[in-house]
């Protein structure tokens, strides 16, 4: 059974399918979901793949239940995942908050489509960027990553599981309709070449274990059901024992732990790629499918003699603040194409801190951004500053 888990080889598959293979390669053995375009293919492939490797697939009655079920499965000792799109992502928010509060590792793949509301179910958008960051109630830090190809849907899903296991929190994959539905070459490496991280287990006997006492890395070891630790897990504000304590001191202690475990490890979490950036005087900062348009625009700009570069954001949250601060001092303008009317650009602008102009190339959704629009913005950014 186990050899079927990692389907080593070269394939022509879409992003949704690649996401499943990444999840399974990372050790995911539980999937709960609800059909929604354009994420349905993830559930479909999981329903086919999980039983043959000893996993559990369940189609729940809605996304509220799906999110709750993967949290339960994670405490039952399995690596668990769900997938959805905008409307379902909104329904998951309440239990994402529970997952953050109880520090439950799991992965949520949001294959974004155009909204608000039912919007354009079959067409692309990048409108859930801020919802991933702030959609759930309360204050927390989150990890969200953004793939821009089916290959990255595979690679990043493994990465998402590793992050969730390492830092004990729900990790969001902010994919989109085009990345999810696009067919491309996907290379699945041999199992022994795939790095898989598993949650830390308590090293102390029951009775000595404090479920929410963090190690030096800010993350507490996690016991699961049946291991004899008799832990209490609650969405109420809790102390290191996991017991509810209703006061501001415990709230402060808990929130600072939830926040610091991400902030203090930000350098280890954040990843980005650069393209022709070294001598660039103007740079595009892009993520997800918009990276593909941006790459073309930068190449065309170079042909026209414009020293353009590209930053591809792999991690969306935490945002690569330091890198942008440095970059803003070096270039004469930053361009951000995104398939929304301005979400990540707010963060970009904040981090640029006024050192260079920041230009948004917005798109309301329904199609990808054409490279020539980014090219025009690149040309315009240089004109303005000369």
């Amino acid at each position: 059974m186990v050899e079927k888990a990692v389907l080593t080889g070269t394939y022509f598959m879409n992003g949704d399918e690649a996401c499943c293979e990444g999840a399974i390669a990372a050790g995911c053995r539980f999937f709960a979901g609800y059909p929604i375009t354009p994420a349905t293919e993830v559930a479909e492939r999981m329903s086919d793949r999980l039983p043959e490797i000893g996993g559990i697939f369940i189609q729940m009655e809605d996304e509220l239940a799906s999110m709750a079920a993967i949290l339960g499965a994670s405490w039952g000792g399995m690596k668990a995942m769900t997938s959805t799109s905008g409307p379902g992502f909104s329904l998951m928010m309440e239990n994402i908050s529970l997952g953050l509060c109880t520090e439950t590792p799991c992965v949520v793949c949001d294959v974004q489509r155009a909204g608000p509301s039912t919007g354009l179910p079959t067409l692309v958008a990048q409108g859930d960027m801020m919802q991933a960051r702030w959609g759930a109630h309360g204050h927390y830090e989150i990890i969200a990553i953004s793939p821009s190809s089916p290959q990255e849907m595979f690679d990043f899903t493994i990465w998402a599981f590793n992050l969730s296991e390492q830092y004990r929190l729900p990790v969001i994959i902010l994919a989109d309709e085009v990345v999810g539905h696009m067919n491309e070459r996907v290379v699945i490496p041999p199992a022994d070449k795939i790095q898989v991280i598993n949650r830390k287990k308590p090293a102390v006997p029951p009775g000595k274990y404090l479920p929410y006492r963090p190690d030096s890395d800010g993350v507490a070891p996690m016991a699961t059901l049946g291991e004899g630790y008799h832990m209490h897990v609650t969405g109420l504000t809790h102390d290191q024992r996991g017991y509810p304590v209703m006061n501001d001191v415990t709230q402060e202690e808990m929130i600072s732990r939830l926040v610091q475990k991400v902030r203090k490890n930000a350098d280890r979490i954040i990843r980005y790629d650069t393209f022709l950036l070294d001598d660039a005087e103007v740079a595009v900062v892009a993520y997800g499918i918009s990276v593909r348009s941006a790459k073309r625009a930068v190449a065309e700009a170079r042909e026209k003699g414009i020293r353009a570069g590209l930053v591809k954001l792999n991690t969306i949250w935490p945002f690569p603040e330091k890198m942008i601060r440095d970059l803003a001092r070096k270039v004469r303008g930053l361009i951000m194409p995104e398939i929304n009317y301005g979400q990540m650009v707010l963060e970009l602008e904040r981090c640029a801190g006024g050192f260079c102009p920041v230009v948004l190339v917005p798109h309301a959704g329904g199609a990808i951004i054409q490279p020539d629009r980014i090219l025009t913005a690149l040309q315009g950014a240089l004109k303005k500053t000369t």
Partner: protein
Amino acid sequence: MTKKKQKVALPHPHDPLLRADRIPHIWCPGCGIGTIFGCVLTAIQKSGLPLDDVAMVSGIGCTGRMAGYLNLDSFHTTHGRAIPFATGLKLARPQSSVIVTSGDGDLFAIGGNHFIHAARRNVDMTIVCVNNFNYGMTGGQVAPSTPFGAKTTTTPIGNFEEPFNFCSLAAACGAVYVARWTTLHIRWITDSLLEAIQKRGFSFLEILAPCPVTFGRRNKLGKAVDLIKFLHERSVVRNQIDPKDAVLDFNKHLVVGKFIDIERPTFLDNYQLINRRELGDWPALERQVPRMEKQAKG
């Protein structure tokens, strides 16, 4: 004095299952939840199940706090979502015994959809519903269980909606075990709980509980003891009847009893059946329930 000291030193049989460091609990004087919690602890002890693999999952509300006092793996989740959380927990660890304890509002208003689907799937878990006829934690609002005409803070001149019959709903959705008692039926509750916990499949137990502080007071049902007596005296035991006939009529009688006890393959039984080709060499998915000798009923 010496005699008194000796008495204090005696452990209570429930002590090993209680998080004593969390006492005092939050429940009001006269609340029925403590009695039911005691029955749950007795049933867990009597069941002979390996305690490390018994889990309690609860939602939000007064009954939702039960999980916090149980010294086993216990999960206090979100409002209405105890059942789907428990579904994930159970399926990820099939050898575990999962008990969901929650109130009528949590299970049947905000969580109603999850209840009916978990019953349909026959996920192996036991649902203990403490029905106190209102939302106690938030101060006594109308619930899907509130009797017609009853006063709550959101039906100040009387409830104009009709309540659910939870037992009938559970049976219609496919629960394999359905029973209802009041908090004074302590031995029956414990026996039913024991049967329900040992039953493979989705078992459901409803317990009519006094909520003197928010429900009883507004409806002039007297003090806690009066309310407990009222529920008990109005109750009539009708075992094995069709639960749709097991009506709760505060003016006439409250029908209690064990209504359903049937066999049906569980979710995991069927999952294994359908996936047999792939799952051929899987270990037994389901938990091993210790064989219990039938106890003579007195």
